[in-house]
């Protein structure tokens, strides 16, 4: 499981970085989204990967922390997803405005000569 998650994070982030460095605004926004996914998986995996372990404690049950997954990274990931979603939406608007004002989808607002 660790290997698959690690490869997934690597592929997402690697493709994201490559797209981020491309000259078209659409490529940049897709790149930023992919990096966002990679980062979210990374945060999640920092709580150690566990299968079949609940993150929330049962009231009244005998408590053994070893039976539970770490809930904090899961909470962090939720926050990060929400914030990432909002900023991507905002970037999308700016991208469209830039396209409308300059008539070009190049990140510098004009085609290189």
């Amino acid at each position, binding site marked *: 499981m660790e290997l698959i998650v690690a490869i997934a994070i690597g592929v997402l982030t690697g493709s994201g970085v490559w797209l981020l460095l491309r000259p078209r605004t659409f490529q940049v926004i897709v790149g930023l989204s992919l990096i966002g996914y990679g980062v979210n998986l990374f945060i999640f995996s920092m709580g150690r990967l566990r299968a079949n372990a609940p993150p929330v404690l049962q009231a009244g049950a005998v408590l053994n922390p070893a039976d539970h997954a770490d809930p904090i990274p899961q909470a962090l990931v939720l926050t990060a997803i929400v914030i990432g979603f909002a900023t991507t939406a905002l970037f999308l608007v700016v991208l469209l405005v*830039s396209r409308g004002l300059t008539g070009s989808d190049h990140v510098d607002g004009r085609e290189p000569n």
Partner: protein
Amino acid sequence: MEAAGHLIVMPIVLPLAAGAFLLLLDERRHVIKAVISIMSTLALMVVAIALLGSADNATASSGAATNSVYLLGNWPAPFGIVLVLDRLSALMLVLTSVLALASLAFSLARWHKAGPHFHTLFQLLLMGLNGAFLTGDLFNLFVFFEVLLAASYGLVLHGSGPLRVKAGLHYIAVNLAASSLFLIGVSLIYGVTGTLNMADLAQRIPAVPAQDRMLLEAGAAVLGIAFLVKAGMWPLGFWLPGAYSAAAAPVAAIFVILTKVGFYVLLRLSLLLFGVDAGATAGFGDAWLLFGGMATIAFGAIGVLASQAVSRLAGFSILVSSGTLLAAIGMADARVTAGALFYMVSSTLTIGAFFLLIELVERVQDPAANVLSVTMEAYSDDTQEDVADEEVGVAIPGTLAVLGICFAACGLLLAGLPPLSGFVGKFALLTAMVRPEPVADGVVVAGSTWVLVALLILSGLCALIATMRAGMQIFWAPIEGTVPRVLLLEIAPVAFLLTLCLVIAVQGGQIMRYMEATAQALHSPSGYVRDVLSAQPTPGPNAPSDK
């Protein structure tokens, strides 16, 4: 907890409430929006000054460093999120509110009508800034960072136009990438230590086993990169002059504090997590900050000399100021830190005033005298036009004389010449660098320090040359036609900020004493750690004991 204890959370709640309420008002009701916004910012300044007073008094009376800790949701420290007020955060709060008041007053002359939701975004920016200065939790810091960044994305586009949208696009892309690095750094640190509370982290880092140390340092380095992007360290600061010079004047003025957020967090974290008590990782990253800061000063100084447009000159001045501060953190010496804090206050106020002044000065400037501004106008369908019409208010007499005096004062402050506060700050920095305490014959000042001293003096010279050249082009070149109309409301904030610079130069002794106490507390972080972790939740009907 009595009412005074809740004052700490006010700098976050007040602008949040004001910003949210402003959203409900119709966009055409400029007057009521402006009044609410100004009232909120004024109240913020009063709260910040009260907090500064309490942070200073608490230390003076009991001897040991006493930081006020506010437990959000009444959960004790390592489990809940805490707000911590110490001298450094109180100082940053006051600085933010003063700069915000000046920018906001300036914007009321015309800029606040240039686009929708200016006041809301401005208040939310203040909320994010204040939260970032107060929080004692690493992930909460990320949230407040995103709040202030999201507001700043809106503000950098305020007034619209192709030039701003292009600069804004770059600014947003760079900051989104930096936010990803922030998250990676935070989660790596959490993965190694199992905590996000800064005080708890400081306690756990010395005990990190040797095989995990590399991961911890990698996390801290990735996290540091995110803040260095904000602070504009070379080679991460190329976005900064473009974005700042394209932004509307009042926005650029408040943005000056954004680079200081990067500096604040780096100062706080490097001394707390990798300070004297950190064991094997003590002093981690100091050399990077020192040499990176020096490279930033050099790059900024060259940029200042090379700038054709005055607004770019101001942008590069920010880089010089950032570089100086970063190098000062890298020195890891309490007296240097004290000097750096003084320098930070002075340079923030100066560059804020400078950005406001540039807008006024550029109305004086004969467009033909500035080749770049002509080319820039050719590329943009002039964005000033739509807001320039209905100007109301009192125009000031002797416009050119007033503007000239203000410009000269900014030049003196940027260059660090007496008699204004720029000199005091730079002098405090240089003294601390070349005469390390305790003074003894055997103490040798390191070679890198001498390079830094030379760079600081040279960057002052560059700033002087550049501002003199710009001033001559603007004020002494022949002006055709009439003198521009400058409103009292526009020049008053500039005069206010510059007068403050004079006041902190006159009150230098007292302010230096405060800065030294701040630096002492920062360099012995055990007081901070103890205060945060020993804060007790308030017992009451809503105590979380039933959970």
